[in-house]
């Protein structure tokens, strides 16, 4: 009780006395969190966007013969062996003919007098709509073309390959910049806290000499770190949310970008960011404090 009271009083005094530096540190934490969560938000939205772009991707497996019910089952089983898929559609010769005709449109006349079965029957495989699954599309196609009774396998080869490379590149960029940002954030926050505490080492030393226990000395600083982390990350995330709303309102309503359908970080992501910045600030304070406290 009296310990808690003393710690809170001490905390109040510290904040009152060093509010200038405190606010600067708070801003540093907030900006770091802002940058970090911003890049994370961009990443999740790109992934989301990628998912939507790839909704139309499908593998078309041309078959030698119109498959009977027995063969259909067997094909389905084989396909599912390789990977979960979203959908499997069988397209008969006649369906293929009708589609081709529809595609030719005005020029459909060229098909007059052709037998309705000159096109091959096929299976349309719609893969699961996530990046990891899409990245395996090439392997999938190779796997399918090695099965029996298959003429050839086709998919938006070119588009998918480009998409593939792009998603690989984005993954690399996100991992690299994520690592860089985490490193920088940790370093800068720790450095700032260190400088702030170093600026008050006289006070720490005096408390020690006057007979304060380690907890008595540490607790207010740890609480301070905790507050810094909590407020800093909240401010950072709040700003990000404001930015996000602004972009959403300005761009989504203007029509041409409606396709994007931005999403914010999910609640868990938010909580995790707040918790880890609290942890980071507290650990930063703790480590710096050790230097003073250990010399007891």
């Amino acid at each position: 009780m009296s310990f808690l009271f003393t710690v809170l009083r001490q905390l109040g005094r510290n904040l009152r006395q060093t509010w200038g530096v405190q606010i600067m540190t708070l801003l540093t934490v907030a900006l770091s969190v802002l940058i970090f969560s911003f890049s994370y938000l961009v990443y999740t939205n790109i992934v989301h966007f990628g998912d939507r772009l790839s909704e139309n991707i499908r593998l078309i497996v041309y078959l030698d013969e119109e498959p009977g019910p027995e063969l259909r089952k067997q094909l389905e089983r084989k396909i599912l062996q390789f990977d979960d898929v979203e959908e499997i559609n069988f397209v008969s010769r006649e369906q293929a003919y009708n589609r081709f005709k529809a595609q030719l449109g005005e020029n459909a006349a060229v098909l007059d007098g052709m037998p309705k079965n000159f096109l091959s029957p096929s299976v349309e495989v719609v893969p699961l709509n996530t990046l990891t699954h899409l990245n395996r599309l090439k392997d999938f196609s190779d796997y399918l073309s090695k099965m029996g009774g298959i003429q050839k396998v086709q998919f938006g080869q070119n588009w998918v390959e480009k998409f593939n490379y792009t998603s690989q590149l984005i993954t690399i960029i996100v991992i690299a910049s994520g690592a860089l940002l985490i490193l920088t954030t940790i370093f800068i926050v720790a450095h700032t806290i260190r400088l702030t505490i170093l600026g008050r080492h006289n006070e720490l030393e005096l408390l020690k000499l006057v007979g304060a226990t380690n907890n008595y000395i540490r607790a207010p600083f740890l609480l301070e770190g905790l507050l810094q982390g909590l407020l800093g990350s909240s401010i950072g995330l709040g700003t990000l949310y404001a930015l996000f709303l602004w972009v959403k309102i300005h761009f989504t309503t203007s029509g041409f970008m409606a396709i994007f359908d931005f999403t914010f970080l999910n609640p868990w992501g938010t909580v995790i960011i707040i918790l880890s910045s609290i942890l980071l600030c507290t650990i930063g304070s703790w480590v710096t404090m050790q230097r003073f406290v250990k010399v007891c």
Partner: protein
Amino acid sequence: MIEVIKVAKIYPPDINALHEISLTVSRGEMCFLTGKSGAGKTTLFKLICNMDQATSGLIEVDGQKMNLLRGRKLSQLRQKIGVAYQDFKLLPKRTAAENIAVSMEVSYKKPQIIRDRVCSLLDQLGLADKYNIPTGELSHGEQQRVTLARAVANFPTLILADEPTGNLDAVTTKRVMRLLSNCNKDGATILIATHDETIFRKSSHRVLEITNGRLKKMTGVPTVP
């Protein structure tokens, strides 16, 4: 109260500040430490209050070996030792009252008790009007008195006063000495390092002289009131 047995202190690389000093101060005694500038007075104080570790030898305070104390035990002993540092170690942005209160807060005294004690001390030292003034804005002599007030505030059983009157005029010096005498009468053991002959010449207390890190001369006999 204090047992110093063959204590030496060598600062790196080879500054020999104390040569095998031995010294006993009994409980309730008041005693002066004198010696030229650089003789080793502050160093001895630092060893006694565990700000620094002796190179060799043993120091016991209140029956506890200083070099073995750690953590909570050390904190508790420190709360019972009041030190008026030669360089003050005040927090310049805190008020005089807050600076004095620090030493009582660490042992969780009640705010009301702290306030009374602080007022009474400031009064005795002629600083009643400086209660709410940051110590950074006090004159040097005023800072020195605040330092002493902080040292005695928590009713310590041992008081180490390092040059408590270096920046004080004769009148104020008397006030300070009266405060210390009162503490002594209340049972505190007191050790005062000083150059000012006027404050110990006529007293009946023991005077120890350090010269070049050696305890050289003692005048007077241990006196316990």
